[in-house]
């Protein structure tokens, strides 16, 4: 009895949430205006929480953040973990792959990789030690960082020497 009721509720709620996440189509007989408004609310909240967790992204993309997030995150379900961190990580990684990004964003990516790793299709907290390095193009520095569980991450950086052709 309870099993059947749970199964029906599961199916109803999954369909409800799926149609909200995709912005429609909405089931016949549903409150279409309410569903539309809720779908917009969910999306706006998703972008807002991502922007709050990743101010470096908003600094790079400005008002283009919403459009970029829509391009990159469309069809990506919300993570069951820290979805704001994951969404920002996906958008920032895509930006990094497309071209140079500011040092601040690159450092944020490094810090996120020190604390998280991909596990079963989503960003999960690391429980073990992690090490990572990145090159900061603007300040011409290599940064390497080590994180041990229970301790603040340690980092060292070195500026690249200026290299210019030798005068003959």
């Amino acid at each position, binding site marked *: 009895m*309870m099993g059947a*009721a*749970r*199964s*029906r*509720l*599961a199916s*109803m*709620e*999954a369909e*409800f*949430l*799926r149609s*909200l*996440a995709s912005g429609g189509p909405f089931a016949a*007989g*549903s*409150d279409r205006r*309410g*569903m539309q*408004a*809720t779908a917009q*609310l*969910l999306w706006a*909240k*998703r972008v807002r*929480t991502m922007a709050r967790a990743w101010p470096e992204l908003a600094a790079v993309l400005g008002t283009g953040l919403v459009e970029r997030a829509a391009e990159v995150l469309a069809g990506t*379900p*919300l*993570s*069951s973990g820290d*979805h704001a961190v994951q969404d920002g990580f996906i958008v920032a990684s895509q930006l990094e792959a497309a071209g140079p990004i500011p040092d601040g964003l690159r450092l944020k990516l490094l810090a996120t990789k020190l604390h998280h790793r991909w596990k079963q299709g989503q960003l999960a907290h690391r429980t073990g030690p992690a090490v990572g390095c990145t090159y900061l193009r603007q300040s011409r520095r290599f940064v390497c960082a080590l994180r041990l569980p229970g301790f603040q991450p340690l980092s060292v950086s070195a500026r690249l020497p200026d290299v210019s052709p030798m005068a003959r």
Partner: protein
Amino acid sequence: MMVSLGLGIGWRPELALAIERREALGFIEVTAENVQLDDIPPALTRMVTRGVPVIVHGLSLSLGGAERPDPRRLDHLARVAERLCARLVSEHLAFVRADDMEAGHLLPVPRTREALEVIVDNVAWARRLLPFPLALENIATLVEWPGAEMDEASFLAELLGRTDTGLLFDVSNMYANARNAGWDPVSALARLPLDRLAYVHIAGGAMRDDLYHDTHAHPVGAGPLAFLEELCSRIEPPGVMLERDDAFPRGDELGAELEAIRQAIARGAARRMGSPTT
């Protein structure tokens, strides 16, 4: 259900300083999902040390979901409550995930007898694993499920009665739902189990595209304040608290908002006792 808490506020890191500076604060409510047990903000610890009563509030149990709440989430809620010396834990009558998808938002449940049976079982399960009293909150929603067999107040009343839980009554949420769907929130008060009232939420909102949004980012408006006054004309709430989650105001603006809430409570109390407002 509870001793008197007075006037409180939802603790947020952005408001920590303004909250700490308030001497006459009845209580604070802390969101469990925002607390890491190995990294509790010192400002929050100071409030606990000062003896300010704490209520721990959950967002992610999904008590209205098709599955029983995750014991790990319940354990986190209980451990946060224990660390903050909380008196009470509260959660929402809502679902937040289904079929491995997260909503990132509180969503309404279908108000059917069959769904009620599942939710009663979920809440009973949560109560068995939580060593704290539990209060359930009504949510704001822009959408209604088709085929509702009960109205919001009746559904909530039956759930609370069958699970022996308290009522966290969000006056702004009910005001928003009533305004958007065109029903009278004041008449719904008669169907709510006000004898189970644990405490009250109030927050600001704004109109957008002909719908009232309970934003928690605007000052509390006249509508929710009037509805709070109506509530207080019927019963003395054990506690009332302001929720603010965005566009955080300065300390003096926050103080003015709390004062407006206090005045609404006082007007309601004066009506209840048949005396003019002071």
